[in-house]
């Protein structure tokens, strides 16, 4: 992809992102334009409800899409992604454990301390699962094995989580089930002040791995011969994805689909293998996808918030299947 085309595409995609952001901010059960800007209700709706939700969509969507891209390149497997490989399940389980611990020592689960502990647990869960997958992928190079192990791991972790849920109180259980459906609506501006710096560091650092990621697309032996420290690359990518997935899962629940499908769609649309291009595209498209999903959620129902997972999966999956049928070559 030529430099000029890359810049132009980035501008186009950014415009779509801006449009969706404005749309998401303005659209909702209460028409903002019917209110005076001096009305306290106006600022409450805009700054306390819609702005955090819109920002969460952008951060979670772009973060998950980036994780998917990094994992797919690292494993050289287009089916890799935080949800498929069980990383999100690892986060979920650890969030469940953290929530149980917090509620058992009689601390409110939703004040700031509680949330940061949950987040740390969530990141640890994501890190552990990715590490296990990586160790297995070093012993067994087959893509199918890695995928199956990821799926099994997800099932095991899910089962353990179900056990925990079975023994938990009705109140905790309800929180869990709703959280498990994925939601972008429970993040506050205060949470975001805590999340954004960590998110920014993780995203920025991914740009330092453009060259090694490009090289590892050939295969590990070639990458090493091209002067890439493959072990260092692996560890760095694991840390970046664990932090992002952990962070996002702690605040929004395990969001399906975005991580795996955005990089696939991006590769099918924009025929480039260069990671500078793909990272930028995935970040923007990921944010757009989640913003659209949130937009559709509100369009479908004014009374209650639909779980975002339902929408991402229902609308996104057919699009990817269509793209796959249309494409001439293998996506991987």
């Amino acid at each position: 992809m030529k430099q000029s085309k890359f810049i132009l595409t980035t501008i186009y995609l950014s415009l779509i992102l801006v449009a969706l952001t404005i749309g998401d901010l303005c659209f909702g059960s209460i028409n903002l334009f019917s209110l005076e800007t001096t009305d306290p209700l106006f600022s409450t709706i805009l700054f306390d409800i819609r702005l955090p939700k819109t920002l969460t969509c952008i951060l979670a969507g772009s973060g998950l899409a980036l994780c998917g891209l990094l994992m797919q390149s690292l494993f050289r497997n287009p089916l890799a992604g935080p949800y498929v490989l069980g990383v999100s399940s690892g986060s979920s389980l650890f969030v469940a454990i953290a929530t149980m611990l917090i509620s058992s020592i009689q601390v409110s689960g939703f004040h700031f301390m509680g949330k940061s502990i949950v987040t740390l647990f969530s990141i640890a869960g994501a890190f552990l699962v990715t590490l296990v997958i990586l160790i297995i992928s070093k012993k067994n190079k087959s893509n199918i094995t890695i995928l199956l192990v990821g799926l099994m791991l997800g099932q095991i972790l899910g089962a353990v989580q179900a056990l925990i849920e079975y023994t938990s109180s009705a109140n905790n259980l309800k929180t869990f089930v709703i959280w498990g459906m994925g939601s972008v609506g429970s993040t506050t501006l205060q949470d975001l002040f805590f999340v954004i710096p960590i998110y920014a560091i993780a995203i920025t650092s991914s740009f330092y791995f453009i060259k090694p990621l490009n090289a590892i697309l050939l295969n590990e032996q070639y990458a090493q011969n091209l002067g890439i420290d493959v072990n260092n690359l692996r560890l760095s990518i694991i840390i970046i994805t664990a932090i992002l997935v952990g962070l996002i899962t702690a605040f929004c629940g395990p969001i399906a689909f975005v991580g795996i499908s955005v990089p696939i769609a991006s590769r099918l649309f924009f025929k480039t293998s260069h990671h500078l291009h793909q990272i930028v595209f995935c970040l923007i498209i990921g944010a757009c996808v989640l913003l659209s999903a949130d937009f559709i959620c509100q369009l479908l129902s004014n009374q209650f918030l639909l779980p975002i997972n339902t929408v991402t999966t229902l609308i996104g999956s057919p699009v990817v299947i269509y793209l796959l049928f249309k494409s001439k070559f293998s996506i991987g």
Partner: protein
Amino acid sequence: MIDIKHLEVGYREKRKNISVFKNINLTLHAGNLIGLMGDNGIGKSTFLKTLTGNLAPLSGEIVLNSTNINNYSTQQLAQLLSIVITEKVGGFNLTVWDVVASGRTPYISIFGKLNAEDEGIVNSSLQQLNLEPLRDKLIDALSDGQRQKVMIAKSLAQQTPIIVLDEPTAFLDYTSKHLLFDTLKKLCVEQNKLIIVSSHDIDLMKQYITKSITMTAENKLEVF
């Protein structure tokens, strides 16, 4: 250029080492096209992997330009020695240009951007193997022979004095095999490179190589 002393190659397992081939002593000089022969499973690939720093030697040492190979960083080694292996490359929108350009990896910044000089080198590498018409094609759309050429062009773009090729003729037709060895021979003579090739096409290879190394079942090296 390369001095191999009492080299033992093989694999390290948890408790014991699995030795594949022992007591390799060789001196290889620039400007030579070296043919490596031996039956399947004798240890040609293991030897080549060790030679290129991908596997650690079980014992002995490999000295490259009077420095032990272990004392080079991955980055330095990448500018001295390039490989062409049998494992297929493809997918992820990789085009011929992308793969050949990856040969510039040891020389470019972390953001992976090629400057005009790098692009010139990639273009001339493509030219040398007559790959210009294919430059924007996806690797997945190429024949096996074309893929092999692309990997050799990648090695050329890497501009290393040493190139190691593990069975590059395996998927090629008769004409392509000759063309390949023609090219390799030319590189040795014109650019004074040291090229090491393993192959089962012994008769064909013997028309081109300057030195042959045969690994035998009795753990002997026959050098001619």
